[in-house]
């Protein structure tokens, strides 16, 4: 058998290399962003049409945003808004990058995690000069937490457009049955109540006081850390999860609660019996858990689903050593920005300013979709929905101690790193908290450096 192989002709690799080089030159020519401009004539009354992309898709939400747009067009007859709904963030990002006449001028996003990238790469225009020119002081207009998640290192490339605040939902009927007269305010009280409200059933539960596991829907580590006011990054921009004592305290407290309520494995098995979070089968609505950490939208869902028990809301408890901060909570929300490549930035800014700072516009939109208004003035508006359960979340949004997850240059990657550690801690895979936090901080810093 002939096992020799003929040497390949030298020309083939050379040709392949040449083709590859040509291709790379082409590839490098197809990237980059361009900046737009502001002189679109709208200020002098010229007709301008801007395109607005948003992610809302429920009937009531789409109606609400369309009503808002119609009200804007009535106020500014020369500015027309072409609305495109149900747009996912990925699609909006690609469109912003590609630019062109069909690209959006104004974009909203449900994820505040993208702000760092939008701002640092200047994909969204810096709204700072526009705010200054129109005499809008962001610090006096927006709650501190909302302002924190809409800017990155001084670049205010987005503004909050309604928000979400997280608090405690509790089953009043179950509270009464367990002899609990008021919602807990500190973590100690909360743990006691959670234990009292837990009714075992074999190796499962007939009722669980609270589902502390990080996969228990809204009980992520970031949402717990909102109760501690953790900062995530130090003044030098480096991760401080290993040096901020509140992070270790949160992880340790959650683990303690997990163990007290039956242990990780038992709780996880019970968790898998829960229905979909955004349905009438939500475990709080079905009575499977007696207390839940959730956003203000749940009040609207519960009012619609009408569970078979009485329920109420309160701020989520705080750590015992921060009892004076009771009333705070985690906050996030929708953001809106202007494409840096837009040629109609004057009209776009007029629209964004209306959406985000016009008190009546913000209030009517908040009432329509049961979200928290995103300006201090709107939060005080008498026109706001008077439902006391909704008012709980308005209080959390107004609380100066409420916290958020800050914008980072690489999106939510730092949260993924911390989440992974939290899962390892609660399941007992990581028992050396100090070492775990140090490794996580390094992982976060490496990822941030990589993104710079």
């Amino acid at each position, binding site marked *: 058998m002939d096992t020799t192989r003929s040497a390949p002709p030298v020309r083939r690799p050379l040709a392949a290399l040449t083709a590859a080089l040509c291709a790379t030159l082409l590839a490098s020519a197809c990237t980059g962003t361009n900046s737009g401009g502001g002189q679109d004539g709208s200020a002098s009354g010229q007709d301008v049409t801007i395109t607005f992309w948003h992610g809302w898709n429920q009937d009531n939400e789409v109606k609400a945003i369309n009503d808002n747009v119609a009200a804007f067009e009535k106020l500014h007859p020369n500015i027309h808004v072409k609305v495109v709904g149900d747009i996912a963030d990925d699609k909006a990002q690609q469109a912003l990058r590609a630019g062109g006449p069909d690209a959006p001028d104004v974009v909203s996003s449900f994820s505040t995690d993208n702000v760092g990238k939008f701002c640092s790469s200047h994909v969204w225009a810096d709204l700072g000069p526009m705010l200054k020119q129109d005499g809008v002081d962001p610090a006096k207009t927006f709650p501190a937490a909302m302002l924190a998640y809409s800017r990155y290192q001084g670049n205010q490339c987005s503004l909050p457009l309604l928000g979400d605040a997280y608090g405690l939902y509790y089953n009043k009927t179950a509270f009464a049955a367990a002899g609990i007269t008021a919602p807990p305010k500190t973590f100690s009280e909360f743990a006691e109540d959670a234990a009292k409200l837990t009714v075992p059933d074999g190796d499962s539960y007939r009722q669980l006081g609270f589902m502390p596991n990080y996969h228990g829907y809204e009980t992520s580590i970031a949402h717990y850390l*909102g109760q501690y006011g953790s900062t995530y990054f130090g003044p030098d921009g480096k991760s401080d999860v290993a040096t901020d004592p509140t992070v270790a305290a949160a992880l340790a407290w959650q683990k303690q609660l997990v163990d007290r309520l039956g242990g990780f494995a038992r709780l996880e*098995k019970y968790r898998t019996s829960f229905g979909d979070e955004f349905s009438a089968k939500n475990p709080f609505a079905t009575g499977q858990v007696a207390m839940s950490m959730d956003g203000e939208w749940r009040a609207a869902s519960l009012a619609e689903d009408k569970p078979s028990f009485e329920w109420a809301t309160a701020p989520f408890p705080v750590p015992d050593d921060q009892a004076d901060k009771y009333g705070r909570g985690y906050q996030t929300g929708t953001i809106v920005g202007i494409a840096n490549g837009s040629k109609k930035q004057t009209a776009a800014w007029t629209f964004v300013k209306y959406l985000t700072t016009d008190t009546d516009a913000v209030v009517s939109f908040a009432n329509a979709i049961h979200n928290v208004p995103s300006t201090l003035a709107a939060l005080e508006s008498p026109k706001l929905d008077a439902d006391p359960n909704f008012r709980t979340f308005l209080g959390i949004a107004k609380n100066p101690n409420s916290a958020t997850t800050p914008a980072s240059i690489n999106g939510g990657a730092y949260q993924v790193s911390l989440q*992974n550690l939290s899962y390892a801690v609660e399941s007992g895979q990581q028992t050396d908290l100090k070492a775990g936090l140090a490794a996580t901080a390094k992982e976060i810093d490496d990822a941030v450096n990589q993104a710079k």
Partner: protein
Amino acid sequence: MATVSPALPPALRRKRRRERARTLAFLSPWLIGFGVFFLYPLASTAYFSFTHYDGYLAPTFSGLKNWDYVFTKYPPFWQGLGNTLWLVAVMVTLRVAFGLGIGLLITKVKTGAGFFRTAFYLPYLAPPVAATMAFAFLLNPGTGPVNHLLGEAGLPQPGWFTDPSWSKPALTMLAMWGIGDLMVIFMAALLDVPREQYEAAELDGAGALQRFRYVTLPNISPIVMFAVVTGVIQTMQYYTQAIVAGKVASGVIGGSGQQFESGYPHGSTWTLPQMVYNLGFQHYDYGSACVVALILFALTMAFTSILLRRKSGFLTED
């Protein structure tokens, strides 16, 4: 010894040129497709792997920074690589063995063969997302019927997609459930084995196992090789089922302050293709995503080349 070819007459040279032009014309659709859909993306990926590129600003040359980051500063890389290799080794082996076994069984069935063929082929037609969601429902540790039956029988009830030690076996079970494509291919090959070879083997006193070893396997070895090679390529690109199973089982929708955790639980279903997506579209680190994509490409090429080179010892010669 070098040879000098004699000069061709002009008429013959023109004829050869025309033939080459014609050949190139016929090949051009493939060549264009190859260039546009393979060579260009591959070259771009290689180029971007040496750049700092966030998808928005123009890429800048960064040398080996991305490679260093992926190999030394990005801990999930090694877990994803390990999971991918586990899936290649176990899933491909079991899929080929199971597909061949089912094919053998069905070719032996005398009555109702059509029913069994349909029954085993139908799951393959289910879209991967739907099939995975159905499996996540069946294997739900708290409410799934599988664990209910295991409990009734007094057997242990695994956590399946929620338990890191069971998540990959659960995905492997899902892959074996959708074995219809391989089963059909193996059936066709098995039915093609000459009957007279079996008769001769029987006359020589060969038992069932010997007939399979010395008659069936040599005849279908090219098909086995095809199944292994395509299986390796598919499994190296394993993405949809892993991400859907993780998403459904974790119960996390995602959103600000609540990132969706790829690879749930504890990174046990985290694969290289997911890493490419996450690095590129969640970390905005296209350079590192390209590094992982190239590693994936190189590994696939290496596996395929090794398998194809080994084929001479495995395949029968006609």
